[in-house]
């Protein structure tokens, strides 16, 4: 029932008047940004260089982190990892058995990490024992884009086995992430994917982004990826 119509209803000497009021409620993301800023300050203060590693399920995030950690440890740096997953501790076990200082972060049902959860994990994490910290996000190319964690840098990992249309299907996360690893390039010919399609799409969206072709299994591209992250 429209406002005007009701004003004409019999029996009422009511007069309906529509008006607009300006209100300013707090931005719902403000709290997330404040918490991310708090994480950032904590990491800076403790001299830890942290990276948010996002990417699709099965794209190779965990193995890439392990490979980067191997190279960094050869340089004498101490490396830690936070394994973000909906459930289970499989990635945590892989990090821990490789000798990384590790923590498990199960989100329960949430499909992404957020600054609040990461903040609590950082409170318990032995930050004094690491120089570089990789925070592996939940496998997902949608939600992590909206939730900054307070890291120094972001990396998104996709693999050629997901198809050469991945960037076009999830443009917003790629437009906002400064480093892209196109992983499993050794399999490109087997799955009929041209990795350069992914690279070109990413460059269109993100002219300042850095893109590296990697194969975590063999270690190809890992040094270049570290350089792209400023490590």
């Amino acid at each position, binding site marked *: 029932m429209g406002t005007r119509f009701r004003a004409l209803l019999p029996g009422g000497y009511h007069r*309906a*008047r529509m008006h*607009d009021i300006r209100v300013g409620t707090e*931005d719902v*993301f403000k709290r997330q940004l404040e918490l991310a800023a708090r994480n950032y300050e904590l990491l800076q203060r403790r001299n830890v260089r942290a990276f948010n590693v996002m990417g699709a399920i099965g794209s190779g995030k965990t193995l890439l982190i392990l490979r980067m950690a191997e190279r960094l440890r050869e340089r004498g740096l101490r490396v830690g990892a936070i394994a973000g997953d909906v459930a289970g501790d499989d990635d945590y076990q892989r990090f821990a058995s490789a000798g990384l200082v590790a923590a498990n972060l199960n989100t329960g049902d949430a499909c992404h990490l957020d600054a609040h959860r990461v903040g609590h994990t950082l409170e318990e994490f032995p930050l004094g024992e690491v120089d570089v910290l990789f925070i592996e996000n939940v496998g997902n190319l949608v*939600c992590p884009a909206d939730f900054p964690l307070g890291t120094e840098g972001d990396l998104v990992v996709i693999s050629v086995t997901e198809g050469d249309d991945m960037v076009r299907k999830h443009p917003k996360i790629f437009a906002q992430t400064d480093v892209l690893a196109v992983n499993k390039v050794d399999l490109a010919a087997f799955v009929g994917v041209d990795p350069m399609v992914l690279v070109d799409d990413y460059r269109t969206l993100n002219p300042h982004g850095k893109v590296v072709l990697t194969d975590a299994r063999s270690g190809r591209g890992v040094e270049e990826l570290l350089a792209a992250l400023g490590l």
Partner: protein
Amino acid sequence: MHEYSLAHALLDGLTDHLREHPVAGRITAVHVRKGELLILSEEALAEAWRILTAGTPLAGSALRLEKVPVKVRCGSCGYEGPVKYAGEGWHFAVPILACPRCEGRAEVIEGRELAIIGLSVDEVTG
């Protein structure tokens, strides 16, 4: 993906606001600024709003979204304003987060917000 929790956060904020600044009459629409970069389904947000407001004084109010286009500030040339979009061949227009003038690295200054900016009130007076 987070429409329900975001609708909840909007409703919480508005409920707090209305407790301190009550309005006379029925709220028919709630106007929201929604940054273009947010990955958020407008249909799902409206549905979450409908469910969450049922049985409250805000029941039946419509959520009206005003899309806020991306704005950037360029670190190189000082440009401030809208960006270019990836067009041809892309299913949706996607903002390119670089300076449209000098192609320099640019910082996003608008396009990630989600906040209530106004209410439409149907005020019935005797």
